[in-house]
Protein backbone atom coordinates (compact mmCIF):
# COMPACT_ATOMS: atom_id res chain seq x y z
CA UNK A 1 0.00 0.00 0.00
CA UNK A 2 1.25 3.51 -0.81
CA UNK A 3 2.36 5.17 2.39
CA UNK A 4 1.66 8.65 0.99
CA UNK A 5 -2.04 8.30 0.43
CA UNK A 6 -4.48 10.33 2.53
CA UNK A 7 -3.94 10.31 6.26
CA UNK A 8 -5.97 7.60 8.00
CA UNK A 9 -6.15 9.20 11.45
CA UNK A 10 -5.73 12.84 12.41
CA UNK A 11 -5.99 13.74 16.06
CA UNK A 12 -5.49 17.31 17.27
CA UNK A 13 -5.49 18.45 20.87
CA UNK A 14 -7.90 15.73 21.86
CA UNK A 15 -9.24 15.80 25.40
CA UNK A 16 -11.65 13.46 27.15
CA UNK A 17 -12.67 14.07 30.72
CA UNK A 18 -14.60 11.77 33.06
CA UNK A 19 -15.61 14.15 35.82
CA UNK A 20 -12.32 15.56 37.07
CA UNK A 21 -10.25 12.76 35.56
CA UNK A 22 -8.41 13.59 32.35
CA UNK A 23 -8.47 10.23 30.57
CA UNK A 24 -7.08 11.78 27.38
CA UNK A 25 -5.21 15.04 27.73
CA UNK A 26 -4.21 16.95 24.62
CA UNK A 27 -3.44 14.09 22.26
CA UNK A 28 -2.07 15.00 18.82
CA UNK A 29 -0.90 12.49 16.25
CA UNK A 30 -1.42 11.24 12.71
CA UNK A 31 -1.41 7.76 11.25
CA UNK A 32 -0.62 7.09 7.60
CA UNK A 33 -1.97 4.22 5.46
CA UNK A 34 -0.15 0.93 5.87
CA UNK A 35 1.47 2.04 9.10
CA UNK A 36 1.59 -0.04 12.29
CA UNK A 37 1.24 2.57 15.00
CA UNK A 38 1.75 1.62 18.64
CA UNK A 39 0.02 3.22 21.59
CA UNK A 40 2.24 2.29 24.51
CA UNK A 41 1.70 2.96 28.14
CA UNK A 42 0.79 1.46 31.48
CA UNK A 43 -2.79 0.64 32.49
CA UNK A 44 -4.77 3.86 32.75
CA UNK A 45 -2.55 5.67 30.25
CA UNK A 46 -5.59 6.41 28.06
CA UNK A 47 -5.00 3.88 25.27
CA UNK A 48 -8.43 2.22 25.39
CA UNK A 49 -10.21 5.57 25.77
CA UNK A 50 -8.35 6.79 22.68
CA UNK A 51 -9.56 3.75 20.71
CA UNK A 52 -13.12 4.41 21.90
CA UNK A 53 -12.88 8.07 20.86
CA UNK A 54 -11.50 7.11 17.44
CA UNK A 55 -14.43 4.74 16.89
CA UNK A 56 -17.13 7.14 18.04
CA UNK A 57 -18.06 5.21 21.17
CA UNK A 58 -17.30 8.30 23.20
CA UNK A 59 -17.53 11.93 22.14
CA UNK A 60 -14.45 14.05 22.86
CA UNK A 61 -14.62 16.76 25.51
CA UNK A 62 -12.63 18.99 23.16
CA UNK A 63 -10.23 18.77 20.24
CA UNK A 64 -10.72 17.20 16.86
CA UNK A 65 -10.60 13.65 15.51
CA UNK A 66 -10.79 12.57 11.88
CA UNK A 67 -10.73 8.94 10.79
CA UNK A 68 -10.67 8.61 7.00
CA UNK A 69 -11.74 12.25 7.02
CA UNK A 70 -14.85 11.43 9.05
CA UNK A 71 -15.78 12.71 12.50
CA UNK A 72 -16.37 9.62 14.69
CA UNK A 73 -18.57 11.58 17.13
CA UNK A 74 -21.15 12.40 14.44
CA UNK A 75 -20.34 9.82 11.76
CA UNK A 76 -19.63 6.86 14.02
CA UNK A 77 -21.53 4.35 11.88
CA UNK A 78 -19.49 5.19 8.75
CA UNK A 79 -16.25 5.16 10.74
CA UNK A 80 -16.99 1.76 12.32
CA UNK A 81 -17.78 0.40 8.86
CA UNK A 82 -14.10 1.03 8.04
CA UNK A 83 -12.59 -0.18 11.31
CA UNK A 84 -12.19 -3.53 13.00
CA UNK A 85 -11.49 -3.71 16.71
CA UNK A 86 -9.94 -6.51 18.70
CA UNK A 87 -11.01 -5.71 22.23
CA UNK A 88 -8.80 -6.51 25.20
CA UNK A 89 -10.93 -9.50 26.19
CA UNK A 90 -12.05 -11.62 23.20
CA UNK A 91 -15.70 -11.30 24.37
CA UNK A 92 -17.50 -13.84 22.21
CA UNK A 93 -20.99 -15.24 22.56
CA UNK A 94 -19.73 -18.34 24.31
CA UNK A 95 -22.98 -20.28 24.02
CA UNK A 96 -22.89 -19.92 20.23
CA UNK A 97 -20.50 -21.52 17.77
CA UNK A 98 -17.65 -19.72 15.99
CA UNK A 99 -19.68 -19.84 12.77
CA UNK A 100 -22.73 -18.31 14.50
CA UNK A 101 -20.57 -15.61 16.09
CA UNK A 102 -18.97 -14.63 12.79
CA UNK A 103 -22.26 -14.77 10.88
CA UNK A 104 -23.82 -12.46 13.46
CA UNK A 105 -21.00 -9.91 13.28
CA UNK A 106 -20.88 -10.24 9.51
CA UNK A 107 -24.55 -9.25 9.36
CA UNK A 108 -24.00 -6.28 11.66
CA UNK A 109 -21.05 -5.10 9.60
CA UNK A 110 -23.35 -5.28 6.58
CA UNK A 111 -21.56 -7.91 4.52
CA UNK A 112 -24.04 -8.68 1.73
CA UNK A 113 -26.16 -11.76 2.45
CA UNK A 114 -24.93 -13.64 -0.63
CA UNK A 115 -21.28 -13.15 0.32
CA UNK A 116 -21.59 -13.73 4.05
CA UNK A 117 -21.35 -17.53 4.20
CA UNK A 118 -18.33 -17.58 1.88
CA UNK A 119 -16.54 -14.87 3.84
CA UNK A 120 -17.23 -16.60 7.18
CA UNK A 121 -15.86 -19.89 5.81
CA UNK A 122 -12.82 -18.08 4.43
CA UNK A 123 -12.03 -16.52 7.82
CA UNK A 124 -12.61 -19.79 9.68
CA UNK A 125 -10.18 -21.53 7.34
CA UNK A 126 -7.61 -18.70 7.47
CA UNK A 127 -7.57 -18.75 11.26
CA UNK A 128 -7.58 -22.57 11.33
CA UNK A 129 -10.88 -22.78 13.14
CA UNK A 130 -12.79 -24.59 10.40
CA UNK A 131 -12.37 -27.97 12.07
CA UNK A 132 -14.35 -26.80 15.10
CA UNK A 133 -16.46 -24.09 13.50
CA UNK A 134 -19.72 -25.52 14.81
CA UNK A 135 -18.57 -26.17 18.37
CA UNK A 136 -19.64 -23.78 21.10
CA UNK A 137 -17.00 -21.12 21.72
CA UNK A 138 -17.01 -21.91 25.46
CA UNK A 139 -15.15 -25.13 24.59
CA UNK A 140 -12.29 -23.24 22.85
CA UNK A 141 -8.80 -22.59 24.23
CA UNK A 142 -7.67 -19.00 24.88
CA UNK A 143 -5.58 -19.02 21.72
CA UNK A 144 -8.54 -20.18 19.62
CA UNK A 145 -10.75 -17.49 21.14
CA UNK A 146 -8.16 -14.85 20.32
CA UNK A 147 -7.91 -16.11 16.75
CA UNK A 148 -11.69 -15.97 16.51
CA UNK A 149 -11.63 -12.40 17.84
CA UNK A 150 -9.11 -11.48 15.15
CA UNK A 151 -11.29 -13.17 12.53
CA UNK A 152 -14.24 -11.11 13.79
CA UNK A 153 -12.25 -7.88 13.59
CA UNK A 154 -11.09 -8.64 10.03
CA UNK A 155 -14.32 -10.18 8.75
CA UNK A 156 -15.57 -7.11 6.87
CA UNK A 157 -12.07 -6.33 5.53
CA UNK A 158 -11.69 -3.02 7.36
CA UNK A 159 -8.88 -0.78 6.11
CA UNK A 160 -8.07 0.16 9.72
CA UNK A 161 -7.52 -2.36 12.48
CA UNK A 162 -7.32 -1.64 16.22
CA UNK A 163 -5.66 -4.29 18.34
CA UNK A 164 -5.99 -3.78 22.09
CA UNK A 165 -3.50 -6.00 23.92
CA UNK A 166 -3.72 -8.74 21.28
CA UNK A 167 -1.56 -11.24 23.14
CA UNK A 168 -2.68 -10.50 26.68
CA UNK A 169 -3.29 -13.70 28.64
CA UNK A 170 -2.01 -16.00 25.89
CA UNK A 171 0.64 -18.64 26.35
CA UNK A 172 3.92 -18.00 24.46
CA UNK A 173 2.97 -20.29 21.58
CA UNK A 174 -0.44 -18.69 21.04
CA UNK A 175 1.10 -15.22 21.43
CA UNK A 176 3.65 -16.08 18.76
CA UNK A 177 0.87 -17.23 16.41
CA UNK A 178 -1.04 -13.98 16.93
CA UNK A 179 2.10 -11.88 16.42
CA UNK A 180 2.90 -13.77 13.23
CA UNK A 181 -0.62 -12.99 12.00
CA UNK A 182 -0.22 -9.31 12.79
CA UNK A 183 3.11 -9.27 10.99
CA UNK A 184 1.61 -10.90 7.92
CA UNK A 185 -1.25 -8.36 7.93
CA UNK A 186 1.26 -5.56 8.24
CA UNK A 187 3.23 -6.90 5.27
CA UNK A 188 0.01 -6.86 3.26
CA UNK A 189 -0.32 -3.12 3.95
CA UNK A 190 -2.99 -3.21 6.66
CA UNK A 191 -3.07 -0.05 8.80
CA UNK A 192 -2.91 -1.14 12.43
CA UNK A 193 -3.18 0.65 15.75
CA UNK A 194 -1.60 -1.57 18.36
CA UNK A 195 -2.31 -0.79 22.01
CA UNK A 196 0.05 -2.68 24.23
CA UNK A 197 2.36 -2.63 27.18
CA UNK A 198 4.32 -5.52 25.71
CA UNK A 199 7.40 -3.62 24.53
CA UNK A 200 9.12 -6.51 22.77
CA UNK A 201 5.97 -7.03 20.72
CA UNK A 202 5.72 -3.31 19.92
CA UNK A 203 9.39 -3.13 18.92
CA UNK A 204 8.92 -6.04 16.55
CA UNK A 205 5.67 -4.86 15.01
CA UNK A 206 5.40 -1.07 15.11
CA UNK A 207 6.67 1.47 12.58
CA UNK A 208 6.06 4.30 15.03
CA UNK A 209 4.93 4.51 18.63
CA UNK A 210 3.30 7.04 20.93
CA UNK A 211 4.42 6.57 24.53
CA UNK A 212 1.49 7.59 26.73
CA UNK A 213 0.89 8.18 30.38
CA UNK A 214 -2.03 9.75 32.26
CA UNK A 215 -3.72 10.56 28.96
CA UNK A 216 -0.77 12.41 27.46
CA UNK A 217 1.67 11.54 24.70
CA UNK A 218 5.12 11.75 26.24
CA UNK A 219 7.01 10.91 23.06
CA UNK A 220 6.14 10.01 19.50
CA UNK A 221 8.16 8.62 16.64
CA UNK A 222 9.98 5.59 15.27
CA UNK A 223 12.39 3.65 17.42
CA UNK A 224 15.36 5.36 15.73
CA UNK A 225 13.83 8.83 16.06
CA UNK A 226 13.03 8.35 19.74
CA UNK A 227 16.45 6.89 20.39
CA UNK A 228 18.11 9.89 18.74
CA UNK A 229 15.98 12.33 20.66
CA UNK A 230 16.79 10.68 23.96
CA UNK A 231 20.43 9.84 23.34
CA UNK A 232 21.93 12.12 20.69
CA UNK A 233 25.36 10.68 21.53
CA UNK A 234 25.92 7.04 20.69
CA UNK A 235 28.29 4.33 21.87
CA UNK A 236 30.19 2.16 19.42
CA UNK A 237 32.23 -0.93 20.31
CA UNK A 238 35.24 -1.61 18.07
CA UNK A 239 37.15 -4.87 18.34
CA UNK A 240 40.79 -4.93 17.03
CA UNK A 241 43.07 -7.72 15.94
CA UNK A 242 45.40 -6.76 18.78
CA UNK A 243 45.37 -4.22 21.64
CA UNK A 244 46.15 -0.66 20.41
CA UNK A 245 49.46 0.91 21.31
CA UNK A 246 49.62 4.12 23.39
CA UNK A 247 49.96 6.26 20.25
CA UNK A 248 47.07 4.46 18.56
CA UNK A 249 44.92 4.98 21.70
CA UNK A 250 45.80 8.69 21.61
CA UNK A 251 44.81 8.80 17.93
CA UNK A 252 41.52 7.10 18.75
CA UNK A 253 40.78 9.82 21.33
CA UNK A 254 41.83 12.68 19.08
CA UNK A 255 39.01 12.76 16.60
CA UNK A 256 36.37 15.48 16.40
CA UNK A 257 33.03 14.07 17.47
CA UNK A 258 34.50 11.69 20.04
CA UNK A 259 33.30 12.47 23.55
CA UNK A 260 34.74 9.59 25.50
CA UNK A 261 36.96 6.55 24.82
CA UNK A 262 37.52 3.43 26.91
CA UNK A 263 39.93 0.63 26.03
CA UNK A 264 40.02 -2.82 27.48
CA UNK A 265 42.62 -5.03 25.82
CA UNK A 266 41.62 -5.26 22.12
CA UNK A 267 38.16 -3.74 22.66
CA UNK A 268 37.60 0.00 22.32
CA UNK A 269 34.35 1.67 23.30
CA UNK A 270 33.85 5.19 22.02
CA UNK A 271 31.04 7.64 22.76
CA UNK A 272 30.40 9.64 19.61
CA UNK A 273 28.20 12.69 19.21
CA UNK A 274 25.95 10.90 16.68
CA UNK A 275 25.57 7.68 14.70
CA UNK A 276 26.48 9.56 11.53
CA UNK A 277 30.03 9.98 12.84
CA UNK A 278 30.68 6.22 12.96
CA UNK A 279 31.90 5.65 9.34
CA UNK A 280 34.35 8.56 9.50
CA UNK A 281 35.59 7.41 12.89
CA UNK A 282 36.16 3.86 11.65
CA UNK A 283 38.09 5.29 8.69
CA UNK A 284 40.18 7.33 11.12
CA UNK A 285 41.00 4.22 13.19
CA UNK A 286 42.08 2.29 10.09
CA UNK A 287 44.24 5.21 8.96
CA UNK A 288 45.82 5.14 12.44
CA UNK A 289 47.08 1.63 11.67
CA UNK A 290 44.53 -0.37 13.67
CA UNK A 291 43.25 -3.67 12.32
CA UNK A 292 39.52 -3.82 12.92
CA UNK A 293 37.69 -7.10 13.48
CA UNK A 294 34.22 -5.76 14.16
CA UNK A 295 32.25 -2.55 14.70
CA UNK A 296 29.06 -2.65 16.78
CA UNK A 297 27.05 0.51 17.38
CA UNK A 298 25.06 0.06 20.60
CA UNK A 299 21.34 0.13 19.84
CA UNK A 300 18.66 1.13 22.33
CA UNK A 301 15.74 -1.21 22.65
CA UNK A 302 12.19 0.10 22.87
CA UNK A 303 12.30 -0.98 26.48
CA UNK A 304 15.27 1.37 27.13
CA UNK A 305 13.42 4.17 25.36
CA UNK A 306 10.12 3.50 27.11
CA UNK A 307 11.60 3.50 30.59
CA UNK A 308 13.78 6.51 29.86
CA UNK A 309 10.64 8.41 28.82
CA UNK A 310 8.49 7.20 31.69
CA UNK A 311 11.26 7.80 34.24
CA UNK A 312 11.92 11.22 32.71
CA UNK A 313 8.24 12.03 33.27
CA UNK A 314 8.45 10.92 36.91
CA UNK A 315 11.60 12.99 37.48
CA UNK A 316 9.94 15.96 35.80
CA UNK A 317 6.97 15.63 38.12
CA UNK A 318 9.28 15.48 41.15
Amino acid at each position, binding site marked *: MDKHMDTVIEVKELHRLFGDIRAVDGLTFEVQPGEVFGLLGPNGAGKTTTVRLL*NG*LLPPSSGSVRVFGLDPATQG*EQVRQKTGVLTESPSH*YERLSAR*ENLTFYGTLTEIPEEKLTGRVNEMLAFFELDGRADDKVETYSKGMKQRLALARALLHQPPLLFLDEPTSGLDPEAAQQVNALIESLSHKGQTIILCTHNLTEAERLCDRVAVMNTGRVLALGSLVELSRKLWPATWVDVKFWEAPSASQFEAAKNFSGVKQVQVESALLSARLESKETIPAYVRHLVESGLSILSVNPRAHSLEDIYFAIQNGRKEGEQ
Partner: protein
Amino acid sequence: MNWRSIRAIALKDYKEVRQNKAAWIPALVLPLIFAVAMPLGFTLLPQLIPTEDVAQEMGDLQDLIVLMPPAIQQIFAETSLEQGFIIYMTAFLFAPMFLIMPLMFSSIIGADSFVGERERKTMEALLYTPSSDGTLFMGKIIASVVPAILLSWFTYAVYIIVVNAASWPLFGRIWFPLPAWWPLMFWLTPAISLLGMAATVLISSRVKTFMEAYQLTGSLVIFVLLLMVGQISGVLYLGVFSTFAIGTLVWLVDAVLIYISVGTFNRTNLIAKI
Protein backbone atom coordinates in the same frame (compact mmCIF):
# COMPACT_ATOMS: atom_id res chain seq x y z
CA MET B 1 -32.55 1.59 11.14
CA ASN B 2 -31.22 -1.57 9.55
CA TRP B 3 -33.84 -4.33 9.68
CA ARG B 4 -31.41 -7.06 8.67
CA SER B 5 -29.25 -6.19 11.67
CA ILE B 6 -32.31 -5.89 13.93
CA ARG B 7 -33.36 -9.39 12.92
CA ALA B 8 -29.82 -10.72 13.51
CA ILE B 9 -29.67 -9.17 17.00
CA ALA B 10 -33.10 -10.52 17.93
CA LEU B 11 -32.25 -14.02 16.66
CA LYS B 12 -28.86 -14.01 18.38
CA ASP B 13 -30.42 -12.97 21.71
CA TYR B 14 -33.09 -15.61 21.30
CA LYS B 15 -30.44 -18.30 20.62
CA GLU B 16 -28.45 -17.12 23.62
CA VAL B 17 -31.38 -17.17 26.04
CA ARG B 18 -32.36 -20.60 24.75
CA GLN B 19 -28.95 -21.82 25.95
CA ASN B 20 -29.40 -20.20 29.38
CA LYS B 21 -31.15 -22.84 31.46
CA ALA B 22 -31.49 -20.46 34.43
CA ALA B 23 -33.63 -18.33 32.16
CA TRP B 24 -35.85 -20.77 30.33
CA ILE B 25 -36.55 -23.46 32.95
CA PRO B 26 -38.78 -21.14 35.04
CA ALA B 27 -40.27 -19.91 31.78
CA LEU B 28 -41.27 -23.47 30.96
CA VAL B 29 -42.45 -24.56 34.40
CA LEU B 30 -44.83 -21.67 35.03
CA PRO B 31 -46.90 -22.15 31.84
CA LEU B 32 -47.19 -25.85 32.62
CA ILE B 33 -48.63 -25.02 36.05
CA PHE B 34 -50.85 -22.20 34.77
CA ALA B 35 -52.07 -23.75 31.56
CA VAL B 36 -52.32 -27.41 32.55
CA ALA B 37 -52.13 -28.24 36.26
CA MET B 38 -54.27 -25.47 37.71
CA PRO B 39 -57.14 -25.51 35.16
CA LEU B 40 -57.26 -29.30 35.46
CA GLY B 41 -57.60 -28.89 39.22
CA PHE B 42 -60.30 -26.22 38.95
CA THR B 43 -62.36 -28.10 36.38
CA LEU B 44 -62.03 -31.62 37.73
CA LEU B 45 -62.54 -30.67 41.40
CA PRO B 46 -66.28 -29.89 41.15
CA GLN B 47 -66.76 -33.06 39.11
CA LEU B 48 -65.06 -35.21 41.75
CA ILE B 49 -66.33 -33.79 45.05
CA PRO B 50 -69.93 -34.09 46.30
CA THR B 51 -72.40 -31.45 45.06
CA GLU B 52 -73.10 -30.21 48.60
CA ASP B 53 -69.41 -29.30 49.02
CA VAL B 54 -69.51 -27.39 45.73
CA ALA B 55 -72.66 -25.69 46.96
CA GLN B 56 -70.90 -24.63 50.12
CA GLU B 57 -67.97 -23.22 48.09
CA MET B 58 -70.38 -21.49 45.72
CA GLY B 59 -72.17 -19.99 48.70
CA ASP B 60 -68.91 -18.27 49.64
CA LEU B 61 -68.32 -17.25 46.04
CA GLN B 62 -71.85 -15.87 45.80
CA ASP B 63 -70.79 -12.97 48.04
CA LEU B 64 -68.19 -12.06 45.41
CA ILE B 65 -70.41 -12.64 42.40
CA VAL B 66 -72.95 -10.07 43.63
CA LEU B 67 -70.19 -7.47 43.40
CA MET B 68 -69.84 -8.12 39.65
CA PRO B 69 -71.68 -6.19 36.93
CA PRO B 70 -75.20 -7.44 36.18
CA ALA B 71 -74.25 -8.88 32.78
CA ILE B 72 -71.74 -11.18 34.44
CA GLN B 73 -74.09 -12.11 37.24
CA GLN B 74 -76.42 -13.26 34.47
CA ILE B 75 -73.80 -15.82 33.33
CA PHE B 76 -73.82 -17.42 36.76
CA ALA B 77 -77.62 -17.30 36.95
CA GLU B 78 -77.83 -19.54 33.90
CA THR B 79 -75.35 -22.18 35.10
CA SER B 80 -75.33 -25.10 37.46
CA LEU B 81 -73.38 -24.94 40.73
CA GLU B 82 -70.48 -26.94 39.29
CA GLN B 83 -70.40 -24.88 36.07
CA GLY B 84 -70.49 -21.64 38.07
CA PHE B 85 -67.56 -22.76 40.18
CA ILE B 86 -65.49 -23.62 37.09
CA ILE B 87 -66.38 -20.36 35.32
CA TYR B 88 -65.54 -18.27 38.37
CA MET B 89 -62.23 -19.97 39.00
CA THR B 90 -60.92 -20.40 35.45
CA ALA B 91 -62.39 -17.42 33.61
CA PHE B 92 -62.41 -14.71 36.30
CA LEU B 93 -60.26 -15.39 39.33
CA PHE B 94 -57.38 -16.82 37.38
CA ALA B 95 -57.35 -14.27 34.52
CA PRO B 96 -54.96 -11.70 36.07
CA MET B 97 -52.53 -14.47 36.97
CA PHE B 98 -51.95 -15.01 33.28
CA LEU B 99 -50.41 -11.57 33.03
CA ILE B 100 -47.46 -12.81 35.06
CA MET B 101 -46.33 -14.76 32.01
CA PRO B 102 -45.73 -11.99 29.46
CA LEU B 103 -44.17 -9.97 32.25
CA MET B 104 -41.90 -12.80 33.28
CA PHE B 105 -40.96 -13.88 29.77
CA SER B 106 -40.07 -10.39 28.59
CA SER B 107 -38.12 -9.55 31.73
CA ILE B 108 -36.15 -12.83 31.62
CA ILE B 109 -35.19 -12.38 27.99
CA GLY B 110 -34.70 -8.64 28.46
CA ALA B 111 -32.44 -9.14 31.49
CA ASP B 112 -30.39 -11.72 29.60
CA SER B 113 -30.23 -9.47 26.57
CA PHE B 114 -29.38 -6.14 28.19
CA VAL B 115 -27.60 -7.06 31.44
CA GLY B 116 -26.35 -10.51 30.41
CA GLU B 117 -24.60 -8.97 27.41
CA ARG B 118 -22.68 -6.72 29.77
CA GLU B 119 -22.11 -9.45 32.34
CA ARG B 120 -20.61 -11.76 29.71
CA LYS B 121 -18.44 -8.86 28.44
CA THR B 122 -19.83 -9.08 24.91
CA MET B 123 -21.29 -5.58 24.91
CA GLU B 124 -18.08 -3.80 23.94
CA ALA B 125 -17.58 -5.79 20.74
CA LEU B 126 -21.22 -5.15 19.86
CA LEU B 127 -20.75 -1.40 20.34
CA TYR B 128 -17.79 -1.44 17.93
CA THR B 129 -20.06 -2.61 15.09
CA PRO B 130 -21.46 -0.08 12.62
CA SER B 131 -25.02 -0.66 13.89
CA SER B 132 -26.71 2.50 15.18
CA ASP B 133 -27.89 2.80 18.79
CA GLY B 134 -31.48 2.66 17.48
CA THR B 135 -30.83 -0.60 15.62
CA LEU B 136 -29.26 -2.22 18.70
CA PHE B 137 -32.15 -1.05 20.89
CA MET B 138 -34.83 -2.19 18.48
CA GLY B 139 -33.14 -5.57 18.04
CA LYS B 140 -33.12 -6.11 21.77
CA ILE B 141 -36.73 -4.99 22.20
CA ILE B 142 -37.88 -7.42 19.55
CA ALA B 143 -35.70 -10.15 21.07
CA SER B 144 -37.51 -9.87 24.38
CA VAL B 145 -41.04 -8.77 23.49
CA VAL B 146 -41.88 -10.98 20.51
CA PRO B 147 -41.01 -14.35 22.14
CA ALA B 148 -42.77 -13.17 25.33
CA ILE B 149 -45.98 -12.46 23.42
CA LEU B 150 -45.77 -15.66 21.37
CA LEU B 151 -45.08 -17.80 24.45
CA SER B 152 -47.98 -16.14 26.29
CA TRP B 153 -50.32 -16.76 23.37
CA PHE B 154 -49.19 -20.35 23.20
CA THR B 155 -49.93 -20.72 26.92
CA TYR B 156 -53.38 -19.16 26.41
CA ALA B 157 -54.07 -21.62 23.59
CA VAL B 158 -53.12 -24.57 25.81
CA TYR B 159 -55.20 -23.16 28.67
CA ILE B 160 -58.25 -22.76 26.41
CA ILE B 161 -57.91 -26.35 25.19
CA VAL B 162 -57.40 -27.78 28.70
CA VAL B 163 -60.29 -25.81 30.25
CA ASN B 164 -62.74 -26.74 27.49
CA ALA B 165 -61.63 -30.38 27.34
CA ALA B 166 -61.67 -30.94 31.11
CA SER B 167 -65.03 -29.22 31.58
CA TRP B 168 -66.62 -30.86 28.52
CA PRO B 169 -68.53 -33.46 30.59
CA LEU B 170 -70.26 -30.61 32.45
CA PHE B 171 -70.73 -28.08 29.64
CA GLY B 172 -70.93 -30.25 26.51
CA ARG B 173 -69.72 -27.28 24.43
CA ILE B 174 -66.77 -24.91 23.96
CA TRP B 175 -67.60 -22.07 26.33
CA PHE B 176 -64.18 -20.57 26.95
CA PRO B 177 -62.71 -17.94 26.41
CA LEU B 178 -65.27 -15.42 27.62
CA PRO B 179 -65.33 -12.04 25.79
CA ALA B 180 -63.10 -10.25 28.35
CA TRP B 181 -60.24 -12.64 27.49
CA TRP B 182 -59.86 -11.31 23.97
CA PRO B 183 -58.59 -7.84 25.02
CA LEU B 184 -56.66 -9.59 27.78
CA MET B 185 -54.82 -11.74 25.25
CA PHE B 186 -54.42 -9.35 22.36
CA TRP B 187 -54.31 -5.90 23.96
CA LEU B 188 -53.17 -6.17 27.58
CA THR B 189 -50.69 -9.05 27.13
CA PRO B 190 -48.51 -7.28 24.50
CA ALA B 191 -48.64 -4.11 26.61
CA ILE B 192 -47.50 -6.02 29.70
CA SER B 193 -44.70 -7.69 27.71
CA LEU B 194 -43.43 -4.30 26.67
CA LEU B 195 -43.75 -3.06 30.25
CA GLY B 196 -41.53 -5.89 31.49
CA MET B 197 -38.96 -5.18 28.81
CA ALA B 198 -38.96 -1.39 29.31
CA ALA B 199 -38.61 -1.81 33.08
CA THR B 200 -35.69 -4.19 32.47
CA VAL B 201 -33.90 -1.68 30.25
CA LEU B 202 -34.22 1.00 32.92
CA ILE B 203 -33.21 -1.37 35.70
CA SER B 204 -30.31 -2.71 33.63
CA SER B 205 -28.52 0.63 33.88
CA ARG B 206 -28.41 0.25 37.68
CA VAL B 207 -27.51 -3.42 38.15
CA LYS B 208 -24.55 -5.58 37.29
CA THR B 209 -25.90 -9.10 36.89
CA PHE B 210 -28.66 -10.91 35.06
CA MET B 211 -30.06 -12.26 38.34
CA GLU B 212 -30.24 -8.79 39.93
CA ALA B 213 -32.11 -7.45 36.93
CA TYR B 214 -34.43 -10.43 36.86
CA GLN B 215 -35.21 -10.16 40.56
CA LEU B 216 -35.86 -6.43 40.39
CA THR B 217 -38.18 -6.73 37.42
CA GLY B 218 -39.91 -9.48 39.37
CA SER B 219 -41.24 -6.75 41.64
CA LEU B 220 -43.58 -5.78 38.79
CA VAL B 221 -45.58 -8.87 39.72
CA ILE B 222 -47.09 -6.65 42.42
CA PHE B 223 -49.03 -4.94 39.63
CA VAL B 224 -50.54 -8.28 38.62
CA LEU B 225 -51.28 -9.20 42.22
CA LEU B 226 -53.09 -5.87 42.66
CA LEU B 227 -55.27 -6.73 39.67
CA MET B 228 -56.00 -10.07 41.25
CA VAL B 229 -56.87 -8.53 44.61
CA GLY B 230 -59.09 -6.05 42.77
CA GLN B 231 -60.81 -8.93 41.04
CA ILE B 232 -61.36 -10.94 44.23
CA SER B 233 -62.55 -7.96 46.23
CA GLY B 234 -64.79 -6.78 43.42
CA VAL B 235 -63.09 -3.37 43.31
CA LEU B 236 -61.77 -3.95 39.81
CA TYR B 237 -63.38 -6.49 37.59
CA LEU B 238 -61.62 -7.54 34.36
CA GLY B 239 -64.42 -7.10 31.85
CA VAL B 240 -64.08 -6.18 28.19
CA PHE B 241 -64.06 -2.45 28.79
CA SER B 242 -61.95 -2.41 31.95
CA THR B 243 -59.35 -4.76 30.40
CA PHE B 244 -59.16 -2.54 27.35
CA ALA B 245 -58.84 0.55 29.56
CA ILE B 246 -56.11 -1.00 31.72
CA GLY B 247 -54.33 -2.10 28.53
CA THR B 248 -54.47 1.45 27.18
CA LEU B 249 -53.04 2.77 30.42
CA VAL B 250 -50.21 0.23 30.33
CA TRP B 251 -49.45 1.14 26.69
CA LEU B 252 -49.16 4.79 27.75
CA VAL B 253 -46.82 3.86 30.60
CA ASP B 254 -44.84 1.78 28.07
CA ALA B 255 -44.52 4.78 25.77
CA VAL B 256 -43.13 6.91 28.60
CA LEU B 257 -40.71 4.19 29.75
CA ILE B 258 -39.53 3.48 26.21
CA TYR B 259 -38.98 7.19 25.65
CA ILE B 260 -36.82 7.35 28.79
CA SER B 261 -35.04 4.08 27.86
CA VAL B 262 -34.14 5.32 24.37
CA GLY B 263 -32.54 8.34 26.02
CA THR B 264 -30.38 6.16 28.24
CA PHE B 265 -29.54 3.52 25.63
CA ASN B 266 -26.59 5.07 23.83
CA ARG B 267 -22.98 4.06 23.35
CA THR B 268 -21.59 6.67 25.72
CA ASN B 269 -23.76 5.43 28.60
CA LEU B 270 -23.29 1.78 27.75
CA ILE B 271 -19.51 1.92 27.42
CA ALA B 272 -19.25 3.74 30.75
CA LYS B 273 -20.74 0.71 32.49
CA ILE B 274 -18.38 -1.86 30.97
